[in-house]
């Protein structure tokens, strides 16, 4: 039990900032982001204490946080939830788009000031904000993001590409 707690404390130290940052990017409310980050760690800690199996902790934490964020949207913003649902329904169209120009888009966005890029990112629909934050701020691969959001690597790549395009449009109308 002591080992488990030590491992979990190490995980807390390693991931608290990035999970909080991710929650803050999605919720735009610092206090709620703190509360959800804490609740995320609490739920995973409870699960671990009960002997639940966790193969990879970081994606597990992100998945838990993701559920909490979705619950939060559901509770507070029914309109946004519909918008989110529409985004996901749109994935068949996304899958048809070629994901090949990402490098060019990344280079274009890299030329903008970080403050402007971050402000623009926060204006994107949540599904894009989630994918782009995980990819370009936390540095996760499309495959790792796929595990968190429960979708295929290809679907994630397409969403990232599409999000980059939207981000560039916002930065360079």
């Amino acid at each position, binding site marked *: 039990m002591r080992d488990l707690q030590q491992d979990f404390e190490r995980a807390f130290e390693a991931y608290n900032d990035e999970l909080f940052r991710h929650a803050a990017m999605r919720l735009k409310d610092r206090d*709620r982001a*703190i509360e959800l980050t804490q609740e995320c760690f609490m739920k995973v800690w409870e699960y671990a204490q009960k002997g639940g199996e966790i193969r990879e902790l970081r994606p597990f934490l992100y998945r838990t946080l993701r559920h909490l964020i979705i619950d939060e949207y559901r509770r507070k913003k029914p309109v946004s939830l519909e918008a989110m649902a529409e985004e996901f329904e749109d994935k068949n169209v996304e899958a048809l788009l070629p994901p090949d120009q990402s490098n060019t888009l990344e280079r274009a966005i890299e030329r903008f000031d970080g403050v402007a890029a971050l402000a623009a990112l926060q204006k994107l629909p949540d599904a894009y904000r989630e994918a782009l934050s995980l990819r370009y701020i936390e540095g996760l691969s499309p495959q790792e993001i796929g595990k968190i959001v429960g979708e295929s690597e290809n679907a994630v790549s397409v969403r990232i590409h599409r999000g980059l395009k939207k981000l560039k449009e916002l930065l360079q109308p």
Partner: protein
Amino acid sequence: MTLHNLKHEAEKIRLTSAEKSAMRAALFGAASPVQTAPSPYFFFSYQFRMVMAGFLVFVLAGAGTVSAAAGGALPGDLLYPVKINVNESVKIALASTPASRAQVHAELADARVEEAQALAAQGRLDTAATAKLSDNFDEHAKHAQDLVQSIAESDPGSAVEITTELDSALAANGAVLRSLGDKSTDKETKNNSGRFAVRVLAHVGATGRITAAQEASMPKAVAVQMMTVLSSDDRSENGNGASTIEAKAAQVLAGARAQFMQASSTLDATTTAQLSAQFGAIDMLMAQGSVSLGAGDSKAAMRSFTEALSKSAQLRAVLKAQIKYDGDILKPLLQFDDHTSNEGSD
């Protein structure tokens, strides 16, 4: 692959060390490892913490979700008593030094004003809720003040830091409350917001405006506290104090910038430019403070850092309200014209 510009900016969004400590305490039922100073009441606090640890195990086992959900509760909500009597009591109990206890009481006093804001924004700040909130506000503010006084000699840096952050946040939040009350169509909310705001602003001797003028930007209570510390002749102690405040000011400034970024989509171009200028002025104060500290003038350094902390805490509070209530909260509070620059100064 990362976008370096985006990543660099986003990494400024972090938890403060106080927030991390509170989270660690809630999760593991122990004080933060960074708090190394032994308590003079070690035996008592050790036993007490064991009791608290047992209690926290209970919280983790079943009531964790209730406790976490209570965090956002407002007076009149079912979970509000859990927030006041459980969450906050645990926070106070786990603060082991007078300085950390003062900090917790300061945060709780400020929390009451923010709760009043939330009720005012919903047009339901009734007289009963106002009475409860102002009594609890007075209680925490007094505890914070007493504890700050008790450490003023031994730890002047923390004393100035806590007073400055609290009073600056209260000055801003009092003004936000008044502004929200003014906009309310509910007469009772309007009256109660005004009454509570006056009480809060009087507590810190503030005018309820954030001005560009240096002296006017600081609530009177902060200026008094700072002068008390500066009147001390012990240069080395002030040097330590200045460094403590420098770190705190940098942390609060980063928080304010993060709020600025989050609020950016709700701000018009003029307000954005005005706020950018305010941030520029704070950066300047921080630079001045570092130069003074390097030159060995710790009093000048302390003055610059304290002012930077005060302005940052005010901006952070107002921007936080702007994000929450998404109205034109900022405009009536920001005063940039020269002819208003003397208001609020002593």
